[in-house]
């Protein structure tokens, strides 16, 4: 059932939702969360569809928010759907005009389901700071997609710099299958990793995150090499006796090779937004590993003052020795100290590349 409301308020929407539910015999809804989708006219259709699909797994009240702005009178347009396309929940699409555009949270707040978690998702460009954004601050979980905009790396940098617990990024979610395979490869082939490389299309926001994760976990300096894509095309871990390599050139089927074992295929499809969103909704507590990865990413880009993926060419990058890439034994002594300044100082003293490994001691960055 669909109800269109031309000039309305939050209570108008609430009673429309109630009407629609009564109309369909007050079916059991069992909604587990409120999902707020903040998008633009151009992207809202796909975003709402993805949200509705994700709501199959996590029955939700989906609130679509489009900020139209403009100088006209403050006005709220809404259309309410229960059942049908909204499948296992309810959905409301709202357009905010005029002055109301700056107070969208006043409409969203009364529409949140009682007690249950609130997730805000920006399918396009996220706000400058998600956790202080008026709508973002209503949520436990804020989901950006830094890959979506026209300048993914700048967005990634910004989202990472403003990280607050509860923030996540679909660019990170996209990495789960890669990370799963990499973790499994080390389960099966336990070895000390001496170096790691991520190969990806230029402008991939996921690649620097994957490199940061590998650097943080393996205590190596993972490099990002630019390729033709699509997305991430390969990850290579240098281990004694060869390399663990997962290569995927077509975005679908990967080749998986481990020293001493036959090369095998593994399906590694690029997932669609609805699947990513579903994964994101599965756990609503802050993602600590993401937080650590973001810290590492920031540290990596801070140190050189340039982004991790500005490598000009793969060949050059491979041979050129980046000063920041070297983590010397001096670092080992300082491994337990966590002040960034100390760390930078330690890096500056480095002259050799004999040990690219960091100490095996407790190096988990303090980013709880």
């Amino acid at each position, binding site marked *: 059932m669909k109800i269109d409301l031309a000039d309305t308020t939050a209570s108008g929407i609430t009673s429309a939702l109630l009407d629609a539910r009564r109309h369909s015999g007050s079916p*059991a809804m*069992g909604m587990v969360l409120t999902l707020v989708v903040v998008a633009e006219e151009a992207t809202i259709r796909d975003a709402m569809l993805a949200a509705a*699909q*994700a709501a*199959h*797994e*996590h*029955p939700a009240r989906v609130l679509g928010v489009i900020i139209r702005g403009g100088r006209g009178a403050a006005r709220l347009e809404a259309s309410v759907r229960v059942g049908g396309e909204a*499948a*296992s929940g309810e959905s409301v699409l709202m357009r905010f005009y005029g002055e109301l555009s700056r107070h969208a949270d006043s409409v969203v707040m009364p529409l949140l389901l009682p007690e249950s978690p609130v997730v805000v998702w920006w399918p396009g460009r996220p706000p400058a700071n998600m956790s202080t954004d008026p709508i973002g601050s209503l949520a436990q979980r804020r989901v950006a997609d830094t890959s979506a905009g026209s300048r993914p790396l700048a967005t990634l940098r910004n989202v990472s710099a403003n990280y607050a617990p509860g923030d996540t990024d679909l660019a990170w*979610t996209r990495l*789960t*299958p890669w*990370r*799963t*395979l*990499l*973790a*499994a490869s*080390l*389960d*099966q082939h*336990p070895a000390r*990793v001496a170096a790691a490389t991520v190969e990806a299309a230029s402008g991939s926001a996921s690649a620097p995150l994957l490199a940061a994760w*590998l650097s943080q*976990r*393996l*205590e190596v300096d993972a490099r990002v090499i630019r390729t033709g894509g699509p997305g991430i095309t390969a990850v290579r871990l240098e281990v004694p006796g060869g390399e663990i390599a997962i290569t995927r050139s077509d975005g*679908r*089927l990967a080749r*998986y090779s*481990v020293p001493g*074992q*036959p090369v*095998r*295929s*593994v*399906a*590694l*499809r690029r997932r669609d937004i609805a*699947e990513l969103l*579903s*994964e994101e909704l599965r*756990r609503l507590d802050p*993602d*600590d*590993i993401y937080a650590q990865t973001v810290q590492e990413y920031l540290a990596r880009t801070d140190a050189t003052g340039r982004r991790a993926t500005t490598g000009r060419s793969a060949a050059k990058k491979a041979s050129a020795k980046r000063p920041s890439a070297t983590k010397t034994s001096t670092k080992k002594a300082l491994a337990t100290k966590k002040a960034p300044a100390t760390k930078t100082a330690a890096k500056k003293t480095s002259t050799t590349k004999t040990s690219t490994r960091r100490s095996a001691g407790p190096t988990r960055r303090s980013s709880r």
Partner: protein
Amino acid sequence: MSTQTSRGTAIGAMAAADLPPTWWRENPLRDPQDRRLPRIAGPCGLIIFGITGDLARKKLMPAVYDLANRGLLPPGFALVGFARRDWAQQDFEKVVHDSVRENARTEFREEVWRQLAEGFRFVPGELGDEASMQRLRVAIDELDAERGTEGNHAFYLSVPPRLFPITIQQLKAVGLADADNGGWRRVVVEKPFGHDLASAQELNRITSEVFPPQSVFRIDHYLGKETVQNLLALRFANSMFEPVWNSNYVDSVQITMAEDIGIGGRAGYYDGIGAARDVIQNHLLQLLALTTMEEPVAFDAHSLRIEKQKALAAVKLPDRLDLHTVRAQYGPGWQGGQKVGGYLDEQGIPPDSRTDTYAAIKLGIDTRRWAGVPFYLRTGKRLARRVTEVAVVFKKAPHLPFTSTETEELGNNTLVLRVQPDEGVTIRFGSKVPGTQMEIRDVTMDFAYGGAFTQTSPEAYERLILDVLLGEPPLFPQHEEVELSWRILDPIEDFWAEHGQPCRYEAGTWGPVQADEMLARDGRTWRRP
């Protein structure tokens, strides 16, 4: 909802075989905090005996595909089919392809198929024939070389139970049962695990000669269902149910598994076995154990098993088996709009068969928690609809400040765990009917598991196959449980064998009148599920 992760493990509560693997400590990419990463089994092979059977085509092969599609199978996974067919490799691939296309839960994707198909092998042969088994051995050795399966193999016995012993012994004879150089060998058997206590013990003797107990996986697919696992979450993760989960508040418990189908083409297996052995001994008694057991000290295989065994060991049979058990056979009738024949009309059933297609029994549990609470278990074929549920019926309020007319339509509060097909939880309680008069009537509150999105409620077989490959046994009954179940059922079966004939019920109904009378004797009625 995963009930797997949350609990820590009490020290000393676990046998060595159940110790959690230490992978995350050794692998820097693993972190217990990183809950996005699922565990993938290591490279391994799944060898299915009886690949042409219904179960393999409708459940096993689709489940394998779905696992691969969800990224949970390792690169280098191999699927070996063994059957008495003259198939070439392509024929086998086509059979798997068709079965996946038809029955898989998730979307068909070419790349997933290609990953899987690289590891397909077919071995034509006959169970019990040494040469065939030698061919299988060669095929498996080849896989170890070509696919890097490293000697890790699980043998899935999807064959009639009478072939279990010979198959297991042959695996031993050709040396397939022994893992070499650090690999593992596991064997998976489907129910029935014997047809009485003696045969179950015999079967266990044969398997344990060849495989150690922790390598034997008895599949009871009910235990892989989300709701069954949720039963434990519901009971032990919440505070509001535990206080009333005892004989002070519970009036009775009804556990039902109804099927709308007849015996289909399974006459050879079913006749002589019957509903009680087929369903009550495993599914219903397992559900009973999970419903009634005390809180395990940890959510691991060993602790769970201890509690389930205690519950099963405390089960008490009624004194008068003639009054508190019923068995019946379906006669012809109309089932959901179709005219169907009776059991004796089914193909391959002797006209004088006394096999039960419906069984209802009353059990008690002799513990402080459950003393005096009757547990009614029933199962049947050709009943009105397909449903499995556990209904915990609570006592009525001791005093009602309403008149009897006002509460005429108020029944007992009930908590229903719907196991299938509509998985979820229902709570039934009284509520005022809108209007000027005070009138109280039962209403229900439903919790339903979400729809049919890619990852929701994986098929039970997916979960179980994955657990076999990972070597995680919490959801598989051990032989002690199997034997305890037979100890409960054997006296009833013996009594039935010696006394009288099965009752009759019309197909498409909720069972024989005698079952209704059985509950009426206790002043109760069956729920209509």
